């Protein structure tokens, strides 16, 4: 070790605009998380296996016995199913974000971050942005598999892209729920299971895998107001995947699913980002 001859000490430079700083810091942290994902590819790969398994299981095991819009055709069900799988997949990013943040919070690195003059939400925003990239990658792979099992879009590319946009926005919103869970638990393992458990009822009490019109009334109400259902229905419309005899439920979020999906996602981001950033600042790790 040679001598450190920094005769003049200097304090850190100042970034004038807080918004510029916030964006910049978040991107620096996002880059760090993306590098980590590249160096621990197992996590990304396992993240891909699960949705692919769901596509195959639901298509071939349940496919023949599902009644959607009055039809039991397995081919129709596969088309119907796919938006549900996509939506479920993007929301599973919750578990990844939660585990990643819980892991960070219990390492010395978080003390380093918290002692730096960086934007206060950047550690969390950087993480959720990196998760968004991972989610997008998963969706691309999943779409390829879906095409292989017979899924098609019928409304043209722009609408299909709009549907993917809605899905990614929902996934991004849910990663903030994951962030809050990750900050609230003691171990990454707890964040993973805590991030997944409630997703099952949320995704199953919705129109993701079955036609919500066939549910008992009280369940149907929940399903129709479920944020998840709005995104799924919006995607089905944009992909042109609704079965011919499908009856759109007569409630506002189902009548305006794309708008409802965007609104739900924004509300989730605002609420959970605020809570998570507050929790991060007060956390003592």
């Amino acid at each position: 070790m040679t001598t450190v001859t920094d005769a003049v000490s200097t304090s850190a430079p100042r970034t004038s605009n807080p918004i510029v700083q916030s964006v910049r810091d978040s991107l620096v942290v996002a880059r760090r998380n993306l590098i980590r994902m590249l160096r621990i590819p197992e996590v990304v790969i396992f993240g891909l296996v699960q949705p692919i398994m769901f596509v195959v299981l639901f298509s071939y095991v349940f496919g023949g016995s599902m009644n959607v819009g009055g039809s039991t055709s397995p081919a129709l069900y596969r088309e119907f199913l796919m938006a549900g799988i996509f939506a479920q997949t993007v929301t599973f990013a919750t578990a990844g974000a939660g585990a990643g943040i819980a892991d960070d919070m219990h390492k010395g690195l978080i003390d380093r971050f918290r002692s730096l003059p960086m934007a206060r939400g950047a550690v969390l925003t950087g993480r959720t942005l990196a998760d968004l990239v991972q989610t997008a990658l998963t969706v691309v792979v999943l779409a390829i598999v879906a095409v292989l099992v017979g899924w098609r879009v019928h409304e043209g590319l722009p609408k299909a892209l709009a549907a993917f946009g809605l899905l990614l926005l929902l996934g991004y919103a849910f990663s903030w729920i994951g962030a809050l869970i990750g900050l609230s638990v003691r171990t990454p393992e707890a964040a993973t299971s805590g991030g997944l458990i409630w997703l099952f009822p949320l995704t199953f009490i919705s129109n993701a895998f079955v036609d919500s019109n066939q549910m008992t009334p009280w369940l149907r109400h929940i399903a129709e107001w479920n944020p998840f259902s709005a995104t799924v229905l919006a995607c089905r419309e944009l992909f042109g995947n609704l079965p011919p005899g499908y009856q759109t439920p007569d409630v506002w979020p189902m009548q305006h699913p794309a708008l409802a999906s965007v609104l739900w996602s924004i509300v989730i981001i605002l609420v959970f980002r605020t809570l998570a950033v507050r929790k991060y600042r007060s956390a003592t790790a």
Partner: protein
Amino acid sequence: MPGAIHAEGLVKTFGDVRALDGVDLDVPEGTVLGLLGPNGAGKTTAVRVLTTLLQPDSGKAVVAGIDVLKHPNEVRRQIGLSGQFAAVDEYLTGRENLQMVGQLYQMSARDAKARAAELLERFNLAEAADRTAKTYSGGMRRRLDLAAALVVRPPVMFMDEPTTGLDPRNRLALWEVIQDLVAGGTTLLLTTQYLEEADHLAHDICVIDHGKVIARGTSDELKARTGGERVEVVVHDRDHLVTATEVLGGFGKGETAVDNHTRRITVPVSGGAKLLAEVIRELDTRGIEIDDIGLRRPTLDDVFMSLTGHAAEEKEEESQ
């Protein structure tokens, strides 16, 4: 004028435990304060409060002239923190770690890159710069952590047990770096369990136990307070222990301590080298063969023992 690090009446409780129970500290600019104490004494809590990581229940803290509680982000621009758990990202390379920290200190990407290369060179990490930190040895990680704390050449540095768990060679190397930093004008607060380390590096020492400052002063002042010098004799033959103890007792200014196992007798004295010669003559006259004899000043271990009634090391085991 208050120092570069100044704290008054810091209190922090965790449940029933008063981790900080009214701590006052003052570190004049360009000096090193050694915060000494056993595990659980409150050293780390004090560092966490001063580095904006933890809100105290009450008290006041000013770092580099800035109020820590009112303007934490301004304080963060002036400080570097190197903790006891090397705070680096294992999956990033040494270079990526330093560049990231530089950018988060708001340096431009280009400046952060240049500074990272410079620090890697200085801390002997240039060869390992593009390997992930996971592959680094403990000493290398610690160096990387310290480099990260120095990215902006901060005027005020905090090091929480920087050499805990390091082998002697790495510890000495780190001491050199710390001394160079201070020679360059950095103000440093250093916590340690190693009395020798505080003795070696710190201008002033603060001993804390149970969240309270129980003594402060220079290393020499603390030692003087504990009592002057002492004569230490190791007799060759265990049968001579009793006689030798009598002899030494005659010269002593305080209680004589005898360790049967090591055949060591220690007694506080005053009179210096001249007295030592007399002791040797007297022992020789009585035909007592000695393996070792010496006049020594109290170590910080003695200081700690007399202040807390227990040795630093013993306490450490208890609290783990």
